[in-house]
């Protein structure tokens, strides 16, 4: 399979200062093998777009304690005490977005939509410095689309063309992120022959996927 690459090929794809989208909701659907590979890379000063920052020492939590993350854009970092500490110490810049605004801004980034208007956070402290606009009879917050240099995502299976399917609620942010980065690397549990995934079953068509790595089972 042409798109299948190794750790040695992954590392140079993500460079100092890059903006990286990382799939997953907590650890569910997070590309743990790819994150592990980044942990072994000298890369630093990353801006990470991800709903959470893993757990202490797990997932993105690992890159955080390695001080590879300069800024995090997401919706909920409170569950990782290391993120709270890093933020308090001024070592981590945080941009908080309502979870739905974040998901939709990523989708917009992938869909060539420049910006969107969303009601969530209107007239709250979270958006006090943001632009508002009345459309119809409601007030909305202006939100620019989110894009990234690289997206690392987790899927269940891919076929040899790079079409992806996901497993249960491990889908979460992975499909929209697969559309919103210049380079998309998918970690998958299994590779099947093209034709094994039906046209109705495919969630992320192959045109979105640049590279694939195989998920390494824990302890394996």
């Amino acid at each position, binding site marked *: 399979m042409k798109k299948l690459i190794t750790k040695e090929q992954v590392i140079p794809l993500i460079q100092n200062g890059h903006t990286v989208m990382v799939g997953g909701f907590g650890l569910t659907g997070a590309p743990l093998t790819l994150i592990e590979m980044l942990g072994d890379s000298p890369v630093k000063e990353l801006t990470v777009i991800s709903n959470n920052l893993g757990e202490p020492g797990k997932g993105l939590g690992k890159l955080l304690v390695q001080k590879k993350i300069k800024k995090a854009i997401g919706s909920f970092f409170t569950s990782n005490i290391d993120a709270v500490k890093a933020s308090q110490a001024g070592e981590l810049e945080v941009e908080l977005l309502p979870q739905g605004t974040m998901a939709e801004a990523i989708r917009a980034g992938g869909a060539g939509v420049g910006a969107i208007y969303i009601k969530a956070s209107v007239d709250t*402290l979270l958006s006090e410095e943001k632009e508002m606009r009345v459309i119809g009879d409601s007030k909305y917050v202006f939100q620019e689309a989110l894009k990234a240099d690289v997206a690392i995502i987790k899927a269940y299976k891919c076929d040899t063309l790079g079409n992806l399917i996901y497993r249960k609620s491990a889908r979460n942010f992975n499909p929209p992120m697969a559309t919103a980065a210049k380079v998309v690397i998918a970690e998958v549990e299994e590779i099947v022959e093209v034709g094994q995934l039906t046209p109705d079953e495919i969630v992320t068509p192959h045109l979105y996927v640049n590279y694939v790595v195989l998920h390494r089972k824990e302890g394996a």
Partner: protein
Amino acid sequence: MNVKQIIASTVAKHLNEGEIVNLGIGIPTLVTDYLHDDSSIYIHSENGILGVAPVPEEQEPDFDLVNAGKIPVGINEGASFFDSADSFAMIRGGHVDVAVIGALEVDEKGRIANWSVPGKNVLGVGGAMDLVEGVGRVIIATTHTTKDGLPKIVEHAHYPLTSQRSVDLIITELATFRVKEQQLILSELAEGVTIEEVKRKTTAKFIIELTESIEEISVS
């Protein structure tokens, strides 16, 4: 029943057959325990599931199938999986009938604060703002007071508001309040609870309009 169970079971009584209900983290997730088996209430989880059910007892937990609290769950017949952008499209677009969420505080206009504590770095907002702006009815499920015994239903919120929208129902282990035209209305008392107790533990002004059946309980 403990305090959390009292709250969750009261919430369950306030849901109508056929409703699509999103359950927040914490007490709200317990609501599924109080829906009867042939209920036509469908539970939406913002991480990408419609049709959440308790994990079947004989089944191993599947960490690819979790709720918004990252706890393994099961699914009903007719359930579906989707990505986070599509999930919040349901919420934001008004396709979810009810949200049951927690709160740090509720002010006397029925507006909630549940995301930020002043003086601390704000590191989590999650999906609460999206839910409060988007769904049909918002039900707050919360203990009546904080761990330190301080009122949570207050005249003015000390914490930043989640939305300018007033919620519809506030359910605690002591009482249920309806919110009508930005006014709190005490409508139900839990068994053995007196109006005086509620008054003592609530600093927000409220009107009393107990529903008959419950009033009987409270005076018995």
